């Protein structure tokens, strides 16, 4: 298994685009998630200009345990960058026809898919680790009291965050294998949120009960938008089993479809 991961990493390690895109992703991830306080200060300044006052110390953005969900939700928005990297990596194999040579050289089709899946797992784990470290550091800096109880609260959002990233990368992998052209795949990836929103808006009156089962919606339901809690609203600060099950279901479906397509087609 490790061998397959090594093969895929070998393809990437000397590919400049990979370093540029991954570098951009992780740098952006680090800077944006770590600069929440700067954003609040800017917000407070703007409020001042309009004559009202905002006490940023009353918004515990980076306090344990709020920091976990706040960072996890926000960094989920950047996953598209990582997904584009996956699209480039997989569609390259089809445009250069290297997938064909890989199989001629002795990989099985499922091994090929598996090597890509393992890279997705690695990229997802790296994102999780990154956000965990940033959360831990910023939490330590800004939390007024640091006690174990608050630190370990809400940690279940990290497995959920992993699922979110892995879900989206599996989706990108499937689209790449089905479409095989990078440009079209990236465009569809960027639009899928909107396309799904149009569909769900139209069936909202007819079949509202199936809406939670839509793939993009299932991610929004897994990790809910948390910031309205600072406007004194209730938020869902726990994981719902049904949401997890739907996301896991989609992950299985995406990867199985990738497998079927690879298995059936002439490469």
């Amino acid at each position: 298994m490790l061998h397959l991961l090594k093969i895929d990493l070998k393809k990437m390690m000397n590919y400049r685009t990979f370093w540029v895109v991954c570098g951009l992703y992780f740098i952006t991830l680090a800077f944006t998630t770590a600069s929440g306080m700067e954003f609040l200060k800017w917000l407070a300044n703007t409020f001042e200009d309009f004559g009202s006052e905002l006490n940023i110390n009353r918004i515990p953005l980076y306090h344990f345990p709020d920091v976990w969900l706040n960072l996890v939700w926000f960094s989920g928005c950047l996953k598209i960058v990582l997904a584009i990297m996956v699209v480039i990596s997989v569609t390259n194999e089809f445009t250069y026809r290297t997938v064909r040579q890989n199989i001629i050289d002795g990989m099985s089709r499922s091994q090929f898919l598996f090597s890509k899946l393992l890279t997705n797992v690695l990229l997802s784990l790296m994102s999780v680790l990154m956000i965990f470290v940033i959360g831990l550091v910023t939490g330590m800096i800004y939390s007024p009291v640091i006690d174990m109880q608050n630190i370990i609260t809400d940690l279940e959002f990290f497995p959920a965050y992993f699922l979110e990233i892995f879900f989206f990368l599996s989706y990108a992998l499937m689209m790449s294998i089905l479409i095989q052209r990078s440009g079209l795949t990236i465009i569809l990836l960027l639009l899928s949120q909107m396309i799904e929103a149009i569909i769900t808006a139209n069936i909202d009156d007819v079949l509202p009960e199936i809406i939670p089962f839509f793939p993009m919606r299932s991610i929004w339901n897994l990790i809910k938008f948390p910031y309205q809690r600072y406007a004194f609203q209730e938020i869902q600060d726990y994981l719902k089993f049904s949401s997890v099950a739907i996301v896991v279901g989609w992950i299985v479906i995406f990867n199985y479809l990738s497998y079927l397509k690879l298995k059936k087609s002439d490469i």
Partner: protein
Amino acid sequence: METVLSIQSLTKNFGKLTAVNNLNLEVKRGQVFGMLGPNGSGKTTTLGMLMGVTNPTQGSFSWFGEAPSNEVRKKIGAVLEHPIFYPYLTGQKNLELNAMIKQCPPENIPNVLELVELTDRRDDKYKTYSLGMKQRLAIASALLNDPTVLILDEPTNGLDPMGIAEIRGLIKKIAANGKTIILASHLLDEVQKVCSHFAVLKKGNLVHIGPVDDVGKGSEVVEVGAEVANLNEVLLNFTGTSSIIKENGLYEVTLRDGFHSKELNRFLFDQGVTASHIHTKKRSLEKMFLEILAGS
């Protein structure tokens, strides 16, 4: 002799088109097996099925008596159609990657690079290579795991005469080491020069299979020239003459089975005719190939 490859009624349909139709074939150890056929006759499709990238519609095949699997493919070195590598990787890195996939020791890399004379360029990116270098790198990659079988599909396609000679020399060198080689080509001269056996495909059907040595066999053709006016009649009187064609002032005599140029020469001499030109023409594979295609 040990059977390396055995194909049983292999068929591939692309929609309505039958690319390969009910193909049966056996390749034995040590053969240099040429697969001939015009463009679109199903050579690459057949090789694609043998290497697991094209799914057969029907039929089966076995390598070394084993059912096809990715593990079996690791024992085979193959270049189908064009050389395929990661353009952004160097020749060296590409081979390292292939060694990982084939699970063979990377220590072979310097040897194969030396064999195809690419050692100097190993640290340049693949995309900077010329077509001939790409072809040679592909052969190097195919040889990486010291395979017992080598599959080459049009290995001299698009090469200049020097490149063609180089690749041909390379194939001969490899064949001399006792490796089994399957060579698909439409360059008949190439096949005649390097192959021991050959098969001819036409529109997906196998129309001929046999040793290359058989090509020269059969009725002999002798070119005769002499400074006599009635040479035509004299030649017709020879009992071994089957037919005569006049071409460029010379007579091309096709002999009956069992007759040779030697007897024709003696006959002419006995008739008081001294030939100024007498030449036994060996039948070329090209001629035979065209005959086979026309006859099928």
